[in-house]
């Protein structure tokens, strides 16, 4: 479908020149903060977390740089196949999970543990962007035209819910909703969906797993069971709150160093920062994330192609959702949802997914002048 003219090919030098180096530095800064916090959380040790994280981050950074050079039209071309493969893998892990018992969410490739639900976050953004990129504004108004993208969203969401992974499903729905919205889907259609969700919520409650129900009730009454489900969030608040204005100092957070803080290297790593660097550190990190989002917005708004706009917006929104859900969770603002803090939490798959996303974002920035017609043919 897509035919690229020679004139539109950018040389490697051009691409490196067009690369958004500010964003790259920001990403490296965030990754560095992550490694430092993992070093502290490990008791001022490179093991068990800081060193593997650093290795993966450096590797992921390389992958990100390579992806940043890939032409945006390649993404457009492979959007559906990529989505299809991820959907297939989700089905595979679902079946394997049933065979292997328990909630298995990954495929061990030997050198790399592939978690399809993670990569699906990118695949879905690409697929939806491609779909809406190909629609005219009038067509978006037709309800029938919304059926394919809805199915695109609901299929992976359903599979992820079966795993069960409420956090990722929520993230997929919210990011997709945002893409629907900026693509021009009418306000009232969102209202209808919200009303419907409200209507079936009590029904859905019965289908939640006990641990999921417990998370919700714990959120409502965290101190009711301080040594059980409420323990994590209570200790998290104690750790964060005791950090005060300037924190206890690097490596001196008693809550994290003395194991009171659970999951301090993964979902609760923001709290390690908050405890050791106080309000200054916590808001400083939020500011860096805000800066990253601003870069994302700038890329989305300056992209000449609608596909590029939608992908950049979708990825930025996903990134925002990671940050918001994680920080809101560890501060006890929303129920406990297992979402890592992007680029900082320990974990290979999430790190890879995020750096791939960043690569795409950088690629859109590099190829911001590339125009692509609705039908996929590039224009100048």
């Amino acid at each position, binding site marked *: 479908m897509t035919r690229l003219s020679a004139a539109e090919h950018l040389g490697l030098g051009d691409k490196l020149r067009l690369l958004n180096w500010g964003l790259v530095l920001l990403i490296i800064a965030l990754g560095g903060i992550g490694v430092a916090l993992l070093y502290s959380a490990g008791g001022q040790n490179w093991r068990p977390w800081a060193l593997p994280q650093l290795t993966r981050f450096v590797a992921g950074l390389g992958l990100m740089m390579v992806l940043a050079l890939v032409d945006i039209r390649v993404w457009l071309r492979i959007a559906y196949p990529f989505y299809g493969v991820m959907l297939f893998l989700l089905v595979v892990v679902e079946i394997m999970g049933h065979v292997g018992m328990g909630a298995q969410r990954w495929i061990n490739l030997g050198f790399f543990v592939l978690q399809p639900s993670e990569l699906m976050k990118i695949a879905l953004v690409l697929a939806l962007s491609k779909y809406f990129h190909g629609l005219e*504004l009038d067509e978006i108004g037709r309800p029938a035209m919304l059926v394919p993208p809805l199915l695109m969203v609901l299929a992976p969401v359903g599979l992820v819910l079966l795993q069960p992974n409420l956090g990722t499903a929520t993230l997929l729905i919210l990011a997709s909703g945002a893409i629907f919205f900026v693509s021009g889907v009418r306000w009232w259609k969102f209202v209808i969906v919200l009303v419907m969700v409200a209507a079936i919520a009590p029904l859905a409650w019965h289908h939640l797993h006990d641990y999921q129900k417990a998370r919700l009730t714990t959120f409502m009454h965290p101190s009711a069971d301080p040594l059980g489900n409420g323990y994590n969030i209570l200790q998290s608040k104690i750790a964060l709150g005791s950090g005060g204005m300037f924190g206890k100092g690097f490596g001196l957070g008693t809550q994290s160093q003395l194991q009171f803080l659970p999951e301090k290297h993964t979902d609760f790593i923001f709290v390690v920062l908050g405890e050791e660097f106080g309000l200054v550190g916590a808001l400083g990190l939020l500011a860096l994330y805000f800066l990253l989002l601003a870069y994302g917005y700038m890329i989305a708004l300056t992209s000449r192609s609608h596909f590029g706009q939608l992908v950049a917006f979708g990825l930025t929104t996903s990134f925002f959702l990671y940050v918001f859900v994680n920080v809101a969770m560890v501060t006890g603002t929303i129920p406990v949802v297992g979402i890592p803090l992007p680029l900082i939490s320990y974990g290979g798959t999430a790190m890879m997914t995020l750096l791939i996303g960043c690569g795409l974002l950088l690629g859109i920035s590099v190829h911001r002048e590339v125009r692509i017609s609705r039908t996929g043919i590039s224009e100048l």
Partner: protein
Amino acid sequence: MSRDSERSRLFTRRAVLIGGAKIGLFSLLAGRIYYLQVAQGDKYRTLAEENRINLRLISPPRGQILDRSGTPLAINQQNYRVVLLPEQVEKLDLLLDNINAYVPLTDSDRRRIGRDIRNSNNLNAVLVHDNLTWDQVAALSLHTLDLSGADIEAGEVRSYPYAESMAHLLGYVGAVSQTELDEDQPELAIPGFRIGKSGVERQYDAQLRGEAGNVQLEVNAHGRVVRELARNEPTPGRDITVSIDVGLQQMVQNRLAEEESAAVVVMDVHTGAVYALVSHPGFDPNLFTYGIGRQDWDRLNNDDRTPLLNKAVDGVYAPGSTFKVVVSLAAMDAGLLEPKGRVFCPGYYELGDHRFHCWKHGGHGSVNFIEGMAGSCDTYFYDLAHRTGIDRIQTMAGRLGFGQKTGIDMPHEKTGLVPGRAWKMANRNVAWQPGETLVTAIGQGYVLATPLQLATVAARIANGGKAVRPQVVARIGADEALSTSWPSLGLEPKHLALLREAMSAVVNEQIGTAYGAHAQDAAMTMAGKTGTAQVRRISTAERAEGVTANDDLPWKERDHALFIGFAPVSNPRYAVSVVVEHGGSGAHKAAPIARDILVECQKRNVAGIG
């Protein structure tokens, strides 16, 4: 392209709208973080400190108990014990099996350990076995690899070097029972803490105990200690010096060794300082240090000779003829005793249609007061008591210290009993009979006294009528604990002098019942009064056939042998009471013991020690 640019404008508009929402949500997070870290920062700082800081109490070393010359009587000895660190125990049963290979554990040990582990807060170690032998320590140390979660700790245990001879006096220490736990005394909850259960250990527990120290520990979420933050050393308990002379105490113990069951109190007539306090047989208080075994407990508890009872303080006996000193003073006080006055003793005294027998078959003949006392003539004292009346006798007994606690600093002191009209009516619901006055006069019937009371009365007679009180503890730390000034009993000095003369005759005149027990060295001679207390009724039929000799009776039916006395006669310093349970005659059994003890006191110059 206009439609596409319109699409792009819509995108921009809506993306900015959502961007605004994101900024709003980020602000919400920032506000939330501010609220937690700054607005509520103090609260969470406190909670974080409570999380990490744990206060562990440190046992204070218990004060030692020393005798009057500073010889240690109760000390703390290092011991080794094996404990479990609950947090590190993985398979309890397996671990206990492994320990059992070197240190035998009973099923009840295992149950207790299981219970302690479940109740533990992970902070305090759980005791598995105390008082390990060196071999056990060595074996456990060698096999530490199989014993992960177990640890060997050094601690202190109470030890009593003079075991048996000091058992009743010092008492012993034991574990704190559930009912003894007290919020105001947090040290009681320290695992393995011991408190005084009897004797001086109990009476002076507060002084001996000291104050617990504490250590502030930083712990992690699993309760494992990370480091020590601060330490307040415990205040050791104060050493206590008892007035006992361990040399004299052991001499008394040895002197009583051939007797079945006996009690002796030796005290200073002026200060009340108790120099020896022995209840025979004794027991080994070290048995109680680790909790006494069932077998030992049964053996001690079922013994007729009551080794666990401190007979000197908690035992009550009919005082027998020693009570005649009370009758004498009561009669003198009432002006009814004419020293030269004579009474004829035909071997009995008739009151109404009842005949009251004198102990001497055939009688003493004509006796005056000195002779009556020296020969312990019952008839003389029947007459004296009949004329004096129970009321005066009861009053004098009370003034001298019978029927009430002496106030010695020992737990469980018995009161004894001095009967009277009101007591008889209240307790027997029958009026007092004149004959009962006669029975009381010779220390039989209802009247009961402790060996401690008997010694105290002897001391009060010897010191010229001062209400001296027996005292065991001489010093607490460096502070003097002995009282030295005593109120007067209000007795006429000449009455007391006459009584002392009569008591001297008991020992030093040939007619005296205890003449056989007079000291070889005249300067060390004693004065006193014998007593032989019947513990069974002698029937008329038996009396007609001739009273069975004591030696022919079963031990439990033989008479108690008693003696009270003081020495030296010229300037009394030491008072003594001797009670030999079922020992037969006071003159032949108790008096020689008293003599030996009083001579030893003077030879050792006990009062001059320390």
